[in-house]
């Protein structure tokens, strides 16, 4: 996908649609769509910096038990552990820095992988009531 806002909007829409097909309820669907939007913003804006020569790779899949979204950019890379906690009092009134926090809030699992160059983020949400969800609940 191009490094544009249109791609962000398109990915969000696709994620919402797939989440519906996977059987998530409305709240979960909204959360997934928002997490994908935020991850796409990171890729397009912070990663590729709207560079028309850089692409974002988006992969969405669902198998009835979980939904897995992978987004990869070609940017300068991201150090997730270095992102300040947006809930800390000194960061609460900052204008930015809430994207990754929101992604983690809405998804069950979030993984980062360094690329050369770029960052790949994998977002996983389990469908409630399935075996995968029960395993997660018991751990």
């Amino acid at each position, binding site marked *: 996908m191009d490094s544009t806002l249109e791609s962000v909007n398109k990915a969000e829409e696709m994620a919402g649609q797939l989440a519906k097909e996977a059987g998530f309820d409305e709240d979960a669907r*909204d959360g997934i769509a*928002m997490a994908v939007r935020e991850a796409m913003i990171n890729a397009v804006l912070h990663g590729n910096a709207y560079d028309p020569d850089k692409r974002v790779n988006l992969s969405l899949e669902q198998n009835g038990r979980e939904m897995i979204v992978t987004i990869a950019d070609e940017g300068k890379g991201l150090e997730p552990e270095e992102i300040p906690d947006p809930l800390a009092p000194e960061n609460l*009134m900052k204008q*930015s820095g809430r994207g990754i926090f*929101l992604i983690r*809030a809405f998804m069950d699992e979030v993984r980062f992988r360094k690329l050369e160059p770029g960052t790949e983020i994998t977002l996983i949400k389990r469908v409630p009531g399935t075996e995968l969800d029960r395993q997660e609940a018991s751990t």
Partner: protein
Amino acid sequence: MTMKASTRQVDGVTIVDLSGRITLGEGSVVLRDTIKDLLGKGAKHILLNLGDVSYIDSSGIGELVSAFTSVQRQGGELKLLHLTKKVHDLLQITKLYTVFDVQEEEAAAIKAFSR
């Protein structure tokens, strides 16, 4: 869906009726420009009616925070009115719900501004 903002005056309070999505790009810019314009005109009491705002992303949250601090810096007050459940939940998880003065009734919100 684009975001729209219209303003009206009630008892010295500028009410901004927002509708649509406050997201990266157009929505955030509309909010930023509206607040900038109002502060330029000397508005001190600003009430953002979010009743028809269906969605806010992290950029929109940042814009709300920025609006709040800009108005405060000019010696004014900014309050929020009619949050939808989605926006309410988002402000809760980002711990901003208690930072903003969130009002449920327009008349009570107007009275709540200090004069």
